[in-house]
C-alpha cells in the first residue's frame, strides 16, 4: 500500500521516426503525493511533455510507452481499459495545454467547453457547473466573470484564455492537473497573472500538479519539488529550495550558472564621440497605421544597445527601418554621422556592408540548399572580391572565429547542424562582410539556455576583438542584464525610457519599465509571493497596466 497519488516506475517511451522506434524517455521514475506540485524541467527534446502526458496514461500519435508502469491512486493506467481511463480523464486528472488559443475549440463558447467534462462525467448538472464556472472565473480574476463564458475563444485574449483553461481543468475538482508550459507563449507581464492565478487555485483546492516548463525561475515559484530531465534521462530531483541553493549534478549546476553570465560595465563613451548609428526621430507606418512614433537613440562604437519590449512594441520594426527594408515616414538614420538613404535599394554597397543582421530563426536565415562554405563565402566574395583559394582561406578563418572547425563544416548543409551551430553560421555570415554594426534580432530566444549562453559569450568576445556595435533586440531581460551597455525600453511603438544599463536596473523608473522589470521571474522561490505582496493582490497584470494608463 502506497500513499502516492501518482507512481510511475521505470518508464520507457519511444517515438517513431521513419519506421523505426527511437527512445524518448529512458527509464524514469516519478512519484507524486496528494496536493504536491512537481516541477519538470529540461531543455527542448528532454521529453518533459511526453512524460507529463504519460502520467495521464496518454500518448500522442507515433509515440508509445514501451516499458514501466503508471499508477494513479492505485489504478494501473497502462493496464486499464480505454473506457476506464476515459472516465478518469477530465474528472480526476486534468490537463492544461501550452497554447490555450489552439486548445479551445473555436466552434463553441467557453462555457460550453467548461461544462462539458462535469456534465459528461456526471459530476454536476449543467446549471450547477455554469454557476461553478462563474465562481472559478472570479477566483482566477477574469474580467466580467458572469459574461466571459459566453464568448468564443477568439474573442478572448491569450492570458485570459490560459486562465479560462485552468478554470476548465478545475471544473471537476481533479486530484491531479498536468500543466504543460502554460505560460511559455505569453509576454512577461501577462505571465505573472497566470502564474499567480494557477498557484492560488492549486493551493486552495489542494490539487496535486505536474508543472512542465523550461524556465527555471518559473518552476522556482510554482513547485514544491523539481525534477531535471536531460535527453530522456533523469538528472536529479530534490526539494525546490534545496535544488536551487545546492544542485548536485554538473548539468544542473551549469543550468543554474547560465543566469550568472554578466559582462563588466564599460566606461561611458565620450560625450562628443560620433555614434556609429544614430536613429533620429523615426516615425514609420505599415500602410496607413503608424507603428513607430518618434523613435530616437544612438549606438556608439564597441557598445551594445538592448532594445527591450513585449510583442508588438515595435522592436523589430525599428530594425527594419535601420536596415532600410521599411523606409520611415519621418526621421532619418545616420551611419558615422552621415545620413543613410532610407531605402536599402538606394544605399551603396559599402553602406550595405556596414550594417549586418543576425536573425532569430537560424532555420529560415540560412538557405537550406547551400553549404556552409557557400553561405559564408558569398559575402566574402561579394564585398571583398576574394575568389578561389583566398576566399576559401577567409571562410576557414571566419569559421575558426566562431569556434567551428573549418574542415568538418565547410561542405555541410544547414540541416546537418544543431540550432546553436546554425546561429553561429549566421554570425559568421554577418562577420564576413566586416561590418561596423550588427543588429541581433532575438538571436537567443529560440535556443536552449546553455546554447544561448554560448552564443552570448561569443558575441561579447567578437565585440571586444573587433570593436563591433550591436543593437540587441530581445524580450528577455536576463539577456539584457548579461550583455547590454545601454537599454532602450519600447512600448506600442514609442521609446518609454532609455539609458545606461546600471541606471536602468535601479529605480526610479517609468512605470512601464518598472512593471516590465519586476515581472521577470527570478530564481528566488519567494519572488512571486513577495511581488504579489508588493503590488497588492488585486494589482497584478491587467490591473497594473490599466492603472498606469
Amino acid at each position, binding site marked *: 500500500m502506497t500513499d502516492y497519488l501518482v507512481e510511475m516506475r521505470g518508464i520507457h517511451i519511444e517515438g517513431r521516426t521513419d519506421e523505426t522506434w527511437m527512445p524518448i524517455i529512458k527509464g524514469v521514475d516519478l512519484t507524486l503525493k496528494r496536493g504536491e506540485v512537481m516541477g519538470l524541467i529540461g531543455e527542448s527534446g528532454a521529453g518533459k511533455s511526453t512524460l507529463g502526458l504519460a502520467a495521464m496514461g496518454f500518448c500522442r500519435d507515433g509515440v508509445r510507452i514501451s516499458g514501466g508502469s503508471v499508477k494513479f491512486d492505485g489504478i494501473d493506467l497502462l493496464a486499464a481499459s480505454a473506457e476506464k481511463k476515459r472516465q478518469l*480523464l*477530465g474528472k480526476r486528472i*486534468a490537463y492544461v495545454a501550452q497554447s490555450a488559443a*489552439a486548445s479551445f475549440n473555436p466552434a463553441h463558447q467557453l462555457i460550453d467547453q467548461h461544462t462539458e467534462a462535469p456534465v459528461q462525467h456526471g459530476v454536476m448538472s449543467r446549471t450547477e457547473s455554469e454557476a461553478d464556472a462563474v465562481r472559478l472565473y472570479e477566483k482566477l480574476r477574469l474580467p466580467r466573470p458572469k459574461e466571459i463564458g459566453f464568448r468564443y475563444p477568439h474573442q478572448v485574449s491569450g492570458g485570459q484564455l490560459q486562465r479560462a483553461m485552468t478554470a476548465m481543468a478545475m471544473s471537476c475538482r481533479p486530484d491531479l492537473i498536468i500543466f504543460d508550459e502554460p505560460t511559455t507563449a505569453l509576454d512577461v507581464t501577462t505571465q505573472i497573472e497566470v502564474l499567480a492565478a494557477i498557484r492560488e487555485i492549486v493551493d486552495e483546492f489542494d490539487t496535486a500538479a505536474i508543472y512542465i516548463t523550461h524556465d527555471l525561475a518559473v518552476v522556482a515559484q510554482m513547485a514544491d519539488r523539481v525534477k531535471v530531465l536531460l535527453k530522456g534521462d533523469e538528472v536529479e530531483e530534490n526539494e525546490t529550495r534545496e535544488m536551487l541553493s545546492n544542485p548536485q549534478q554538473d548539468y544542473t549546476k551549469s543550468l543554474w550558472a547560465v543566469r550568472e553570465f554578466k559582462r563588466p560595465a564599460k566606461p561611458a563613451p565620450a560625450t562628443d564621440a560620433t555614434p556609429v548609428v544614430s536613429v533620429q526621430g523615426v516615425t514609420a507606418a505599415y500602410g496607413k497605421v503608424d507603428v513607430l512614433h518618434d523613435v530616437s537613440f544612438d549606438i556608439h562604437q564597441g557598445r551594445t544597445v538592448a532594445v527591450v519590449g513585449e510583442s508588438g512594441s515595435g522592436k523589430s520594426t525599428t530594425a527594419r527601418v535601420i536596415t532600410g527594408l521599411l523606409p520611415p515616414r519621418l526621421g532619418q538614420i545616420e551611419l558615422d554621422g552621415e545620413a543613410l538613404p532610407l531605402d536599402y535599394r538606394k544605399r551603396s554597397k559599402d553602406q550595405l556592408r556596414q550594417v549586418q543582421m543576425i536573425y532569430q530563426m537560424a532555420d529560415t536565415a540560412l538557405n537550406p540548399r547551400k553549404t556552409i562554405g557557400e553561405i559564408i563565402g558569398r559575402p566574402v566574395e561579394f564585398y571583398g572580391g576574394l575568389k578561389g583559394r583566398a576566399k576559401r582561406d577567409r571562410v576557414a578563418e571566419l569559421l575558426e572565429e566562431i569556434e567551428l572547425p573549418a574542415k568538418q563544416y565547410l561542405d555541410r548543409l544547414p540541416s546537418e547542424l544543431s540550432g546553436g551551430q546554425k546561429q553561429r553560421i549566421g554570425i559568421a555570415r554577418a562577420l564576413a562582410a566586416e561590418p561596423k554594426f550588427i543588429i541581433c534580432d532575438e538571436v537567443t530566444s529560440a535556443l536552449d539556455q546553455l546554447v544561448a549562453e554560448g552564443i552570448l559569450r561569443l558575441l561579447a568576445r567578437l565585440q571586444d576583438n573587433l570593436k563591433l556595435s550591436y543593437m540587441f533586440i530581445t524580450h528577455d531581460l536576463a539577456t539584457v542584464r548579461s550583455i547590454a551597455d545601454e537599454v532602450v525600453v519600447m512600448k506600442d511603438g514609442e521609446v518609454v525610457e532609455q539609458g545606461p544599463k546600471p541606471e536602468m536596473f535601479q529605480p526610479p523608473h517609468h512605470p512601464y519599465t518598472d512593471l516590465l522589470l519586476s515581472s521577470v521571474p527570478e530564481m528566488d522561490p519567494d519572488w512571486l509571493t513577495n511581488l504579489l505582496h508588493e503590488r497588492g493582490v488585486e494589482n497584478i497584470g491587467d490591473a497594473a497596466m490599466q492603472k498606469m494608463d
Partner: protein
Amino acid sequence: MHPVLKIILQRLALGLVTLFVVSIVIFTAVNMLPGDFAQAILGQGATPEAVDAIRRDLGLDQPPVTRYLQWLSGALQGDLGNSFAQANFASFVGADSGVRTTVAQQIAPRFENTMFLAGVTAAIAVPFAVTLGILAALYRNSVFDKAANIGTLTSISSPEFFVAYILILFLAVLNPMLPSLSNIYEGMPFSERLEKTLLPALTLTLVVTAHMMRMTRAAILNLMASPYIEMARLKGVKPIRVIVRHALPNALAPIINVVALNLAYLITGVVVVEVVFVYPGIGQLFVDSVKIRDIPVVQACCLIFAAAYILLNLTADILSIVSNPRLRHPK
C-alpha cells in the same frame, strides 16, 4: 452591416465580375475565327445569299463591341441566338429538321438531362466519398487506409473513358444488369430514366469519389491533429462525442469546400462520359457542336459551363465563410 454579410456581398460581386470578364474572353476567342468563316461552314457550293445570312446571323458585318453587347443582352434575356445546325444531331430525338432551331431550344432539354445526371452522381458520390474519407482519416495507416490510398490514386489516374468501358464490360456486357446506352427522351418514366442514367452516374461517381475522398481525408487528418481535439480526448469525452461535437463543426467548412470543388470537377468529366454513353446532355451537344463548328451553340455551352463552375466555387466560398465561427462571431 454584419461583417459576414459584407464579405458575402463582396464575393458575389467578385463572382459577377469574373463571369462578365469570362464572357468577354469567350466572345473574343470566337471572334478570332477567320473572316470567311461563313463560307467555310457552308462549303464551296454555298450560295452567296446563304453565306450572307450566316454573316448577318453571326453579326460579322458589325463592329465587335456592338456584337458583344448584343450577344450579352440577348444572353441575359435567355436568347442565345440561332443554331447553325441544319439537320438534327444523330442522338437528338424529337426536334424537327429543316427549321432553324434556336440555341436555347437546343440547350434547354439537354441542360435538364445533364443536371439530372449530375444530381444522381452527387447523390451517390457525396455521402459515399465523405464517409470513406472520414473512415480513412480515423483509421489512418491501417490496411483499409492503405488500400484506399492505392485505390483512389488508381481511380484518379484512369481516364474517364477507361472507367466507363470497364463498367460497361462488367455491368452491361458480361452481366447484363444495366443498359450501356443512355437513350433518354422526354416523358420517360422516372424509374426507367434512373436506370439508364445509373451507369454514366456510376462512372462519374468513381472518378469524383476518389478526389473527394482524398481531400476529405486530408481535411479531417489536419483537424484531428489540432490541439483542441487532443484537449477533448484528455477531458475524457467519449470518442463519438469527440467527432460529433468537436471535430464535425470545424470539419464542415473544409468538407463543403471539397464537395463543391469536386462537383465543379464533374463539369469536365460529364463531357467525356456523356459521349461514351451517348447520353443526350449538354456535354455531348457541346462536343457535337464543336465538330460541326456550330459557333453559337459552342459559345453558349461554354458560357453555361463557366457559369456553373464559377457558381460552384462561389457557393463553396460563401458556405465556408458562413460556417467559420471567427467570422460569425466577430470580436
